[in-house]
């Protein structure tokens, strides 16, 4: 007996119940994905027991958004990225931010989602509409206690209109028994500028799939991520940088570390359409394996349908640089602390690009604390 049912959708009594029910039907009609599908390769989707969760909601607080919150969320008619986004469409609790033309929000909007109810499946959806020449920064935090179980299937939709500037950061500090399957879509219009950033420290299996599309000439996206898994955690990232319009730019820097028995997966696609002349696309994924039992996979892909483009991709997986460790130890620094310094240094490049302003040292401290608890003194 599945615990997420169409009756659950009906009992929400939402105005868009019909659309929600058809999304649920699309979800129910399709089989769950398997690791045999390329986009789920190396994932832990085979372990998912969706029936073990019941519908629930997150405790959510929002600060700094008073003037721009709207409740007439229009959801893109275009298809959702995957079945879990369809499920989100059926059960979603939407937050819709619309920044009017020319408005600049000086302070970031901070949304904090806390998973409290044990065994629930939760479906937050954040829609950011940045109208022409507007500017906004949104930070979305996902947190839970260490003992809580559950699954979160968040969806993010960013629409940056002409010359809009959007900065988005999601921070995953979920407990190690929580699953996350997230879908993010961003569409950038002419001369718009979008930053999609992620910090992932928590979760049991935590996946983020991001599709950034540049549909207007001169638009640009930047995607950065910092992820650090230990214990038996798995962090899983799938990215697409899609260039549809000419002279568009995308840049991606994902840096991760895995310790203990943890795993991470990064697969990235740069897709340049036939009309994207003069496009520039860059993709870099670097991974540190901090223990023999840890494992990281990095798979870059290119799909280019026009000449006159500039593309590059680079990926590395490997342990800490021995020379860096030796250098620090030669200053009298103990091996575990030397290792912590090297890892923090490795992440520093990403930390510097996150839209966290004065909170960067706090974030650095949390990573340091996670390293501290993880590293066993030699």
């Amino acid at each position, binding site marked *: 007996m599945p615990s997420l049912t169409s009756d659950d959708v009906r009992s929400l009594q939402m105005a868009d119940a019909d659309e929600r029910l058809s999304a649920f039907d699309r979800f129910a009609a399709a089989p769950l994905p398997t690791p045999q599908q390329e986009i789920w390769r190396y994932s832990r989707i085979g372990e998912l027991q969706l029936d073990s969760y019941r519908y629930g909601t997150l405790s959510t607080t929002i600060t700094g958004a008073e003037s721009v919150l709207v409740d007439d969320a229009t959801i893109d008619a275009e298809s959702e990225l995957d079945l879990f986004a369809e499920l989100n469409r059926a059960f979603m609790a939407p937050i819709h931010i619309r920044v009017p033309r020319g408005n600049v929000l000086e302070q970031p909007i901070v949304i904090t989602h806390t998973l409290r109810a044990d065994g629930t499946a939760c479906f937050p959806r954040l829609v950011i509409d940045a109208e022409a020449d507007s500017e906004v920064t949104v930070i979305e935090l996902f947190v839970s206690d260490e003992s809580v179980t559950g699954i979160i299937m968040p969806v993010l939709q960013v629409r940056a209109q002409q010359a809009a500037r959007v900065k988005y950061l999601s921070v995953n500090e979920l407990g190690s028994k929580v699953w996350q399957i997230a879908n993010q879509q961003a569409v950038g219009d002419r001369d718009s500028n979008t930053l999609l950033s992620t910090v992932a420290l928590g979760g049991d299996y935590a996946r983020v799939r991001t599709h950034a599309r540049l549909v207007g000439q001169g638009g640009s996206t930047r995607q950065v991520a910092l992820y650090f898994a230990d214990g038996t955690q798995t962090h899983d990232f799938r990215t697409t940088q899609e260039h549809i319009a000419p002279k568009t730019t995308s840049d991606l820097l994902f840096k991760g570390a895995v310790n203990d028995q943890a795993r991470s997966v990064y697969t990235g696609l740069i897709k340049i359409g036939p009309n994207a002349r003069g496009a520039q696309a860059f993709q870099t994924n670097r991974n540190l394996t901090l223990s023999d039992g840890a494992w990281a996979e990095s798979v870059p892909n290119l799909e280019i349908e026009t000449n006159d483009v500039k593309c590059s991709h680079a990926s590395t997986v490997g342990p800490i640089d021995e020379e860096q460790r030796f250098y*620090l130890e*030669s*200053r009298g620094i103990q091996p575990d602390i030397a290792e912590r*310094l090297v890892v923090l240094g490795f992440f520093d490049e990403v930390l510097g690009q996150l839209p966290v302003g004065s909170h960067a040292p706090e974030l650095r401290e949390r990573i340091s604390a996670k390293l501290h608890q993880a590293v066993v003194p030699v």
Partner: protein
Amino acid sequence: MTTLSIANLHASVGGKRILNGIDLAVSSGQVHAVMGPNGAGKSTLSAVVMGQPGYTVIDGTVRLDDLDLLSMPTWQRAQAGLHLVMQYPTEVPGVAVADVLKEAFLARGRSTLDVEELMSKEAARINFGEQFLTRSVNVDLSGGEKKRNETLQLAILQPKIAILDELDSGLDIDALRDCSRRVEEATNEDGLGVLVITHYSRLLKELKPDVVHILVKGRIVETGGPELVEVLERDGYAAFERDQPEESSSTLDDLFGMPHNEN
């Protein structure tokens, strides 16, 4: 008074014997120079004494007073008072010099409150621009700036004995003067003992050695006063090399039945 004593040190890298019995002792306040041609084993000597991975000690001892350094990990050797200035200082991206020094102080149980003040003071003493202090260690620094950075750390950490591995390589004359003067001052002010390893004599015009050792094919073939530097200036290494066996680990040793302790 502290003494670094190296006795009968034999070491290999990747199965190849590089050091074939080194003996020397450096005490507080002294400057010893080890000079030698390329491939003599100069960098191997500094790496083995500091404990760099990848080198195998075959025989011999290295002691700092009564401490057996070879049985200690690198960080303990450093805490005991040994310091290495590397020929090619390693770049550590994302880690600021101040972070390294603070952790180094904490590791020694010292307060970190005065680290920044010490850094400013020492940077001024060696004409090291303040703007470099907040950068990642050795990243995007010129050769001269890297060596100034290394000298700054040496001055702040105040070790008992310092090994300077080719401090002069890639150094312009101003940086060479600034760095070597600071080291010289440390020998006078703090009683620092120095083992300076170099190929060329120009460093030794700034940093005056008390004792000069000539290293050829993994052995010290000559030890003398500063006058040895002038002999080298005039005749080069050729005179010293001619006297040495082709294969230092075989032939003559075998002929004369010298004992080899291969553990």
